[in-house]
C-alpha cells in the first residue's frame, strides 16, 4: 500500500470550532489528510466524528476555523469551485442515504449524469461495474434500497460514492452493523480499491478490526479536538486514559492478534 506522501496534505483543517446552540462539539480542531492514505478517525460515541465529516464536506457550517481541500477554501468556495470539489470526493453516509425512490443502479447513475456526453448505455454499464466492484450481485442493481439488507445498502452507498472515481472518499462507520465476515470483506474491499484506484480514504469507525486491517494512520477525537494522530504502534505509546483503554483493552488485543500477516500492520 502507498505510504502517506510527505508532500502537502490534500485536506487541511485548522482551528475548527463547531457548535449546536451552546453545545460545543469541536474547539480548535486541527487535522491533515495526505494523498493515498487510509486515515481512521476514532472516538467515543457523540464526540463529533460525523459532524467533522460533514464540516469537511461542507454540509455543516462551522462557527470558526479554516478547511482547505485540494487548495480550495471549502467555506468560502464559489458554487463553481464547490462543483469541482464535489467531483473530487465521494461520501458514504452512515446508513447509506440512498434515494429510496430509485433502484440501486439508478442511485449509482445519479452522479454519472453530471458527465455531459455519456450515453445511457455507457452510464448503465459503468453503474453495473461499480455495483459489481463493491461486491453486490448483478440482480441487486434492480432492487430498491428498502428491499436490501443493511450491509447491502452500505455497499450500494459506497458504489454511489465511487461512481465518479473520486480522489477522496469519506466513509462514516462503513462496517457498523455488519456481520464479522461481511465486515472483513468490506475491509478488504477498501484496501483493494485504495490500492487500485490510489484512493484516499477518510474512515470514521468504531471497529478495531477495521482499524487494524486497513488504516495507515489514525486520528483520535477526544476533548473536542484531534488528540493525537499516528500509526497504530504509535497509538500504543500514547499516555492518555481513553487512548490507552481503547487500544490496549481486551478487545483491542483480540483484534491485534487476529490481523493477518498480509496486511500493512505487519511491522507492528
Amino acid at each position, binding site marked *: 500500500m502507498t505510504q502517506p506522501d510527505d508532500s502537502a496534505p490534500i485536506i487541511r483543517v485548522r482551528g475548527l470550532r463547531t457548535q449546536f446552540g451552546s453545545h460545543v462539539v469541536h474547539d480548535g480542531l486541527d487535522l491533515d489528510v495526505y494523498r493515498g492514505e487510509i486515515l481512521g478517525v476514532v472516538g467515543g460515541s457523540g464526540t463529533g466524528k460525523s459532524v467533522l465529516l460533514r464540516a469537511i464536506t461542507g454540509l455543516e457550517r462551522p462557527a470558526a476555523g479554516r478547511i482547505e481541500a485540494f487548495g480550495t477554501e471549502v467555506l468560502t468556495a464559489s458554487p463553481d469551485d464547490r462543483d469541482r470539489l464535489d467531483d473530487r470526493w465521494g461520501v458514504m453516509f452512515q446508513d447509506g442515504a440512498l434515494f429510496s425512490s430509485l433502484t440501486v443502479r439508478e442511485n449509482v447513475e445519479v452522479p454519472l449524469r453530471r458527465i455531459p456526453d*455519456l450515453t445511457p448505455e455507457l452510464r448503465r454499464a459503468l453503474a453495473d461495474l461499480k455495483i*459489481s466492484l463493491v461486491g453486490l450481485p448483478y440482480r441487486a442493481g*434492480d432492487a430498491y*434500497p*428498502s428491499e436490501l439488507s443493511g450491509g447491502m445498502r452500505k455497499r450500494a452507498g459506497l458504489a454511489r460514492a465511487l461512481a465518479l472515481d473520486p480522489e477522496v472518499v469519506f466513509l462514516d462507520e462503513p462496517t457498523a452493523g455488519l456481520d464479522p465476515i461481511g465486515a472483513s470483506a468490506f475491509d478488504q474491499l477498501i484496501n483493494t480499491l485504495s490500492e*487500485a*484506484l490510489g484512493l484516499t480514504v477518510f474512515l470514521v469507525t468504531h471497529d478495531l478490526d477495521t482499524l487494524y486491517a486497513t488504516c495507515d494512520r489514525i486520528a483520535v477525537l477526544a476533548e473536542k479536538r484531534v488528540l493525537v494522530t499516528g500509526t497504530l504502534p504509535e497509538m500504543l505509546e500514547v499516555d492518555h486514559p481513553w487512548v490507552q483503554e481503547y487500544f490496549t483493552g481486551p478487545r483491542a488485543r483480540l483484534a491485534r492478534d487476529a490481523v493477518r500477516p498480509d496486511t500493512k500492520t505487519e511491522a507492528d
Partner: protein
Amino acid sequence: MTTSMPTSGLQIEHEESGAAPVISLSGALTVHALASLQAGLKEVPQTSVIDLSKVTRIDTAGAWALADLERRAAASGGRLRYRGASEAAELLLDTVRRAMPVAEPAPGTATGLRALFEATGKRVVGGYDFLRGLVAFLGMFLAGLFRVVIHPREFRFTSLVAHCDDVGLRAVPIVSLMAFLIGVVLAFQGATQLRQFGAEVFVVDLIAISVLRELGILLTAIIVAGRTASAFCAAIGSMKMRQEIDAMRTLGLDPVTVLFVPRILALLLMLPILGLIADIMGLFGGALMSWIELGISPSMFRTRLVADIDISNVIVGLVKAPVFAVIIGVVGCHAGMQVKGDAESLGRMTSSAVVTAIFAVIVADALFSIFFAEVGM
C-alpha cells in the same frame, strides 16, 4: 491514423507494425473521455497490442472500456495484449476485469393482449384483496374495541383525549365556516328561484331539509376525511416505516389497542358533534341570508322551522355520522399499515387514503339515501 479528442486530451493512434497492429493511447482515460474512447475503440482489430505508455491517468471507466474491448475480442476469438502499462494501471485493470458484471436477463414480461389481460386480472384481484383487507381491519378494530370494553384498564384515556382534541376540536373552525357558507349559498340560490313563484318562505324548508338531512354531515365527513384520514395514515405509516410497530409488538403492546382504537374511537365520538355543529351553523347562515335577501326575520325563520321540519330530519342526518367515522378511521389506519419501507410509499398511501375515504363516504351516503327512501323516512 490519429484520432484526437481536443476536450479530454485523449488520443488514439493506430499503426500497423509487424505481426499485430498497435493501438497507442495517450492522455487521460477517464470517465470524462469515456464516450470518445469507446467510439475510438470500436474499430480495433481482434488481435492487437494496446500501448498505454503515454497514458497520464486511468480510472475505472477507462479500465472498463479496455476490459469491455478484451471481452469483445475474446468473444470473436481474438486476444489483446498491453504494452507499457504502469503498475497501478495493471492493478486497476485486474480489479476491474475481475469485477466485470455479467448481465443476467430480466425475467420475461408479457406483451400485447396478454399484458392487458394480465394487468386487468391483477387489478381485479388487487381490488378484491384491498376490500378484504379493509373488512379484516374493521373486524380487528371491533375486536380491539370489545377487548377495551372488557379490560378498560388497558385503555389509554389520555391518548383518546389527545386524539379527540386533534380530530374534533381543531376541526371546529373549518367545519363551522364551511357549513355557514353552505347555508348562505342555499338561501341565496333558493331565493332567486322561489321568488319567481312568490314562494319565498319555502326557502326555510329548502335550507333545513338539505342541510339537516344531507349536506351538513356529508360535507363535514368529507372535510374530516381530508384532514384525518391523511393524518392517521401518515402517523401510522411513518411508525411502520421505522419498524416502531414491530418494536411495539415485541414489547407486548398491541397496535390495535394502542394505535387504532383511540384514533377511531375519537372520530366516532367527534364526528356526530361536528355534524351537529355543521347543522347549526348551516341553519344560521341560511337564516342570516334569508333575512338579508328575502326579509324573512329570524323569528319567522324559527317559527317555520319548528312548525314544518320534523325532528326525524336531524336524526336521519346524524345517524350516518358514526358510520362515516368508522369508514374514515378504518381507511386511514389501514392505509398506514400498508406503507412499505420507503418514503414514496408513505406519500402514495396517504393520498390514496384520502381519496378512498372520501369515495367510500359518498358511496355510504348514497346507500343511506336508498335505505331511508325505502323505509319512508
